[in-house]
Structure formats: structure tokens, C-alpha cells
């Protein structure tokens, strides 16, 4: 052991470490090609984004980093200018972002619908109800277990809107439990505990085989789950990659992409997970039902 040779050796190692550390930083350079998309867990958990984004990246050279969080957090990221583009499903909140100038465009991309699922033995007897509100009333009357996202996601907000319709405050009721997690997690909990749950159809179909939960209520217009793409206003947030955001929004609404969305999942589930709605307005969609 010769310390002085070791000393040099240490210097070499130190230099190597530094280079390594910098290599670790290599792909961190801020580039114009980087687009940050804030979206909901449902678009990730259905696999749709992992399917579409590589196509977009291939086509345009942009690189999309998507952060899948609850709609509440996605919208908050938009409001702080931390994301360039949002793909979300909470129309009432979305409009606020347009009104306060956070978003400079908001376009309808697609929809699927929410459904109420529950254990096959249907303890509250809601199966076949035409209206979601009616089913919720029955669940409350029966005191049957209801599992809520409780995370201010689009799904959670939709659920709260339905409770509001029947003038009931579910929070705090013994039969009402909040998971504070994503859709798939919440479905897991509902399946484990044998509770009812409001879910988007896509995530449910994707998970159906392992869950053991049945569809109880579907088709009520209030249950429409509408996704909009919103670009964040560069006039308000100078660091936003406006071009990249616009490119991604345009891509989602392009004819070929819309076709891909409409076909996504058909081969696996026999039905599409999303309905492509490029060019339509929300009103047209509601009246369609």
C-alpha cells in the first residue's frame, strides 16, 4: 500500500465521479423540444398515452414528459405555469382556467363515460337505475359501502356533483370512504371491500378481469367523462413551451390521431376505451346522448 500512489488514484476516481455526475445531468438541459404534459391518471392507466406519445415524438421531434396526477393537481400545475399542456376532464374547473387567462385554448379531444360499479350481489339494489342520482340515493338509503377517490380528480368532482344533485353531503358518513388515490387503486379497494364506486369506463374495462365488480349504472348524460386539451398561455407564463404545447394539442385533434383514439382498446376489450370527439363542442356531445 503506497498512499501517494493512492492519492493520485483518488484524484482520478474523483474526476471520474464528477464526469459521471455530469453525465447524470446530461439529459437535463432545458431544451425547446421538451413539452410537459400534466394529465390525469386515467389516461396513463389505460395505456393510451404510452401508445400515442411515442407516435407524436417520432413525428415532431418533440419529447413529451407527462406527469399523471389527479385532475386537481394537473389544473394546479397549469395555474402555476409548471406544465405546458393539460389533458384533463373536469369541464367546470377547466373553464375557470380559460377565464382567468391561464389557458389560451381549450379543445374537446374525446370522451368516455363514467359508470357506477359495484359488487355482483348489489346490496343497495341499484342495478338498472336510469339516473346516477337515483342510484346514489339508494346507496345512501341502504347505507351500502361507497368508495370515493377523494383526491379532487375529475372523477371525484363528478361524483361530488351527483351527490350535490340529491342534496346529500357524503363526507363523514360511516358508509362513505375516501381512498385519496388514483382510479385503479380505488377500484382495487372497492373490489376488496365489496363497495360501490364511480369510475371511468376505460380504467374499469382495462382492469375488469381482476376486479370482480359489475357495471350497475350507465348511460346517464351526467356521467359523460369529457377530456379537453388545454394549452397554457405563454403571455401569462413566459417559460411555457407554447409551440410544443400547440403541436401536441394539434396532434391529439389530427384526423389520424383521432382514428387511433377511436380504435384504441377495441382489439383487447371488444369495445373502444375512448370516443374520439375532435371538432365537436361540449353541447353537441351532451345532446347526442
Amino acid at each position, binding site marked *: 500500500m503506497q498512499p501517494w500512489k493512492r492519492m493520485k488514484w483518488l484524484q482520478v476516481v474523483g474526476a471520474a465521479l464528477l464526469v459521471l*455526475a455530469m453525465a447524470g445531468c446530461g439529459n*437535463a438541459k432545458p431544451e425547446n423540444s421538451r413539452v410537459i404534459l400534466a394529465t390525469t*391518471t386515467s389516461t396513463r392507466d389505460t395505456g393510451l398515452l404510452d401508445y400515442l406519445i411515442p407516435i407524436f415524438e417520432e413525428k415532431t421531434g418533440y419529447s413529451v414528459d407527462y*406527469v399523471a396526477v389527479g385532475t386537481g393537481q394537473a389544473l394546479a400545475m397549469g395555474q402555476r405555469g*409548471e406544465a405546458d399542456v393539460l389533458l384533463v376532464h373536469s369541464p367546470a374547473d377547466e373553464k375557470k382556467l380559460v377565464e382567468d387567462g391561464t389557458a389560451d385554448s381549450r379543445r374537446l379531444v374525446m370522451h368516455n363515460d363514467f359508470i357506477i360499479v359495484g359488487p355482483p350481489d348489489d346490496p343497495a339494489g341499484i342495478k338498472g337505475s336510469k339516473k346516477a342520482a337515483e342510484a346514489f340515493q339508494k346507496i345512501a338509503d341502504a347505507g351500502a359501502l361507497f368508495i370515493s377517490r377523494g383526491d379532487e380528480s375529475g372523477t371525484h368532482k363528478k361524483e361530488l356533483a351527483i351527490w350535490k344533485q340529491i342534496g346529500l353531503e357524503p363526507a363523514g358518513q360511516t358508509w362513505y370512504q375516501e381512498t385519496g388515490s388514483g382510479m385503479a*387503486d380505488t377500484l382495487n379497494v372497492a373490489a376488496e371491500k365489496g363497495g360501490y364506486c364511480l369510475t371511468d369506463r376505460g380504467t374499469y374495462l382495462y382492469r375488469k378481469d381482476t376486479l370482480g365488480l359489475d357495471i350497475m349504472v350507465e348511460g346517464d348524460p351526467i356521467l359523460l367523462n369529457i377530456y379537453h386539451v388545454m394549452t397554457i398561455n405563454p403571455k401569462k407564463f413566459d*417559460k411555457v413551451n407554447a409551440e410544443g404545447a400547440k403541436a401536441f394539442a394539434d396532434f391529439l385533434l389530427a384526423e389520424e390521431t383521432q382514428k387511433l383514439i377511436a380504435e384504441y382498446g377495441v382489439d383487447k376489450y371488444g369495445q373502444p376505451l375512448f370516443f374520439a370527439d375532435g371538432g365537436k363542442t361540449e353541447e353537441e356531445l351532451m345532446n347526442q346522448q
Partner: protein
Amino acid sequence: MQAFRLLIQGDPEILRVTLLTLRVSGTATLVSLLLGLPIGLILALTEFPGRRFLISLINTGMGLPPVVVGLWVSIFLWRYGPLGFLGLMYTPTAMIIAQAVIATPMVAGIAMAGIAQLDPKLSLQIQALGASRWQLWWLLIREARLSILAAVIGGFGAVISEVGASQMVGGNILHKTRVLTTATVMEVAKGHFDMAIALSLILMLLAYGVTLLLTLLQHRRRPS
């Protein structure tokens, strides 16, 4: 079981996530070594005002919950945060920073304890042999190298198994910031239990490797 098939066949996705995990956590550990070792040395070998306060900070830092680190690193790295101009949020570098923040107090604390465990006269003896300040430090590090190695391995074990901070500053972005822990959480959420189990097996294997290394090291320790 499907999980084992995924592992044995070397599922490319799993491989990629594992490599990224090793790169991120490995780099974070190296960074924490470069920062924590001098801090530990200075605290162990010198006297200065505020030293006690720093030691208490280090001790607090050793028990810092990763999500707290994640939140604070996020606040700094957000586009409109103080370091936003670097554009580091949701990048591996952000994760390296967060993990280094988690591991540095650990490395510093254990290195400090390792040096402090040495015979206090040893430092005098080395100086008496004609060592300059740097030579002295190098020799003391060398004497305490088993403790320091333990610190490094411990730090690596901590950051590789940490999920809160990685999720928050990395965002679990496919091919970019998706590491073993965040991927496991996500796969469980998606109901892909096979994938989740496969990922968790790798994590367990790594954790076991780390523990094994530590144990081996402890057995090689100077008989006292």
C-alpha cells in the same frame, strides 16, 4: 408465475427501469459521498463555532422523510421556483438532487462517527510522521474506510428504496424518470401485479445485496 417469467426473460422495460434506477441512485450516492465525506471529516476533526448546531442538523437530516425532501426540492426546482431557470423539474437530475439531499446527511453522519471512533492519538501520530493536512485527512479516511463504505452502502440502500421524493420531483415519466419504486407503485395502481411483483423482486434483491455487503464488511472490521 408470470413475474418470474418477466424477470428470467429479461423484459426490456424492467431492464430499462432497473438501469435507470441504478444510474440515478448510484449518481446520487456518489454526489452525497463527495459532499458528505468532507462535511463529516470537518465535523469530526475540527472545532469551530456552530459545529454543534451543524451536527444536530446532520442528525436531523439523517431522519428526514423523503417526501419532505421531495416537496422542498420541488419548490426550488419548479419553473417559477428560485432554481426554475435550470429546467430540472421532472428530470433524472432532479431525482439525483433529491436523493443526494436524503443521503448526504447520512454519509456525513456515519463518516463523522467513523472518524470519531478512531483513536484520538492516531491523528497526532500521523501528523508526527510528517503528514500535511491533506495527507492526514487522506490517511484518516483510509483508516475509517470501512465505516465510510458502510455509510455509502447505507446511503445507496436508502435512496434506492425511496419513493416519495422520486415520485414528486421525477414524476414517474416513462423512460426518463421511472425507477423501480415509482414503477412498482404505478403498476400496483394499474393492477399489473405481475409486473409489480417482478419489480419488487429486483428491489428486494438489491436490498438484500446491500445488506449482505454491509454484513460482510462488518465481519472484516478490525478486531478490537
